[in-house]
């Protein structure tokens, strides 16, 4: 059996960059489809973040929307109520998300209570976030939400500039991911994912690496969350709910392939196509995604990247 030819990360990244850059040309000038494509990029970003947190260090964070939303709300509220510049408030939001994510990870890892603990803590945090937003309605306008069109940075107000700006951020994230995985941290992640105890015994500081992964992933969630808030024009608890963000990321990552570079991208593209297909179902789309999660987890766990790799006899990053 011949070993599969490995495709280099650089080649893959270049291919992705070119392909995604050319997408708007294939959309025939439709503003509707451009928006869908831009949102797809945003969800790819979320998925890259989750890939780092769960795909590589097995920390099941069930609060992706809440972390992104925390960053978004912090940034938007500070910009609106205190008239600060979004370029200042966005980093603050990112820091908030990173701190929260790192804290959840630290607490869980130190107590070494395994997957359930992180899952429960983060799920509960989702609930806390939701209720906090509703409860602090003087600041957040509760369920009704806040319009961000007026305060958004110009580059995020729509159309082609927004697409390319967000694409740039996504590519930076992918490059950072690629470099991270090729660094010592990446090897550590692999060891931790394979066998945590063995990694610990081999001298790897499992706590540090897991918290690091969680913080980096959460920071990315915060960044994308802020982009989502300003590009989307509107934030509300529903925008960042479990059934809006977490479910999409789960499907996309499982579809694409956990622990891979191309997984989030391919998964995001596939998800977007499926999303368009089930649009006529309206709110029942969540049902389809739930079914997909169950099926993917049970049968197709390694995702499209692994499948394509097998078919084409190459090893995709």
């Amino acid at each position, binding site marked *: 059996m011949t070993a599969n030819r490995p495709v280099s990360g650089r080649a893959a990244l270049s291919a992705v960059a070119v392909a995604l850059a050319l997408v708007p040309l294939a959309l025939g000038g439709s503003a509707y489809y451009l928006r869908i494509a831009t949102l797809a990029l945003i969800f790819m970003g979320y998925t890259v973040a989750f890939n780092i947190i769960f795909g590589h260090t097995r920390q099941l964070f069930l609060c992706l929307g809440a972390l992104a939303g925390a960053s978004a709300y912090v940034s938007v509220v500070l910009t609106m109520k205190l008239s600060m510049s979004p370029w200042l408030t966005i980093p603050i939001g990112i820091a908030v998300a990173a701190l929260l994510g790192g804290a959840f990870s630290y607490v869980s890892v130190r107590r070494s209570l395994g997957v359930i603990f992180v899952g429960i803590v983060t*799920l509960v945090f989702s609930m806390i976030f939701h209720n906090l937003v509703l409860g602090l309605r003087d600041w957040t306008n509760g369920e009704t939400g806040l319009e961000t069109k007026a305060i958004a940075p110009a580059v995020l107000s729509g159309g082609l500039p927004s697409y390319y700006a967000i694409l740039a951020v996504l590519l930076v994230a992918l490059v950072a991911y690629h470099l991270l995985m090729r660094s010592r941290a990446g090897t550590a992640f692999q060891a931790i994912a394979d066998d945590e105890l063995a990694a610990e015994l081999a001298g790897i500081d499992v706590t540090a690496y897991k918290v690091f992964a969680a913080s980096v992933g959460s920071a990315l969630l915060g960044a994308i969350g802020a982009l989502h808030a300003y590009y989307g024009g509107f934030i509300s608890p529903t925008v960042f709910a479990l*059934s809006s963000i977490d479910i999409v990321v789960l499907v996309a990552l499982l579809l694409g392939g956990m622990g891979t570079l191309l997984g989030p991208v391919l998964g995001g593209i596939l998800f977007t196509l499926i999303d368009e297909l089930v649009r006529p179902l309206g709110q029942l789309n969540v049902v389809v*995604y739930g079914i997909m*999660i169950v099926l993917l987890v049970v049968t197709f766990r390694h995702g499209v990247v692994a499948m394509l790799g097998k078919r084409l006899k190459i090893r995709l990053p």
Partner: protein
Amino acid sequence: MLAILIDGIVQGLQLSLMAVGITLIFGLGGVLNLAHGQIAVIGGIATALLLAAGLHPLLASVLGVLSAGAFGLIMDRTILVPAYRYQGEERLLLGLLITLGLSFVVNGFLDVRYPTVALTLPLPTPSFTVGAITVRTASAAVAVIALAAFALLFAFLKGTLLGKVVRSIMQNEVGAGLCGINSGRIRTLIVALSAMMAGLAGVMQGLFSSLGTELGNEFTSFALIVAVIGGVRSVNGTLVAGVLLGIVNAYASYYVGAYLTLLILLVTAAGTILVRPQGLFAFRT
């Protein structure tokens, strides 16, 4: 003062009833059921639909609870089967994701199909007085039912052979197999039982105030918190933890109001978990 305490205990009992299903399924099946709240909602909505169809409240409630149990049974025998092929953390993770997917499916379906259906079970006499306190009949009913359910559960676990078998599987599944016990079949029974407990809690929510499809995730979260604080394998612990949290909730609500109460509750939960992560009752089924 006393009225608040009573209210807290009653709410706590309902929380415990919600949570004990999680404890049982985790202790026996090694799976954390994230669709637990949705099962409670199914019990409540089924009851509401049957009520609307003209059935007597008691019959509707019983059938509602049974349908929740049936759902649990089907869940165990179908989509959880792939999870049971694994052990330990693999099984946990798989079970988590499968039940998470299931929760989305049920939530989505119920939200679209029955968005306005809510279960409310009015009682003939809204309240009665005992000595100096006025007690809501609903509170008394919930307390009695919950206590009865727990009493039956304890009697089952301690007193019957099957209950002993269940405890043995929870303490050592391999050991149980060595005694010739078919733990898979017992597990299905317990999952169905847990689902019925959840369904019962859902119906009782209808007694207490009202239950709608949107409460699913909240139920799950609360059940998880109570189960973890009580010691995620201990039935005793779940009962105590639920009542404690119910009391905290009642007092906090009275003094501070709804949203801050939730925060206090969650912070208390977080605090307990940090200080004693294995739960209050580490391991005493």
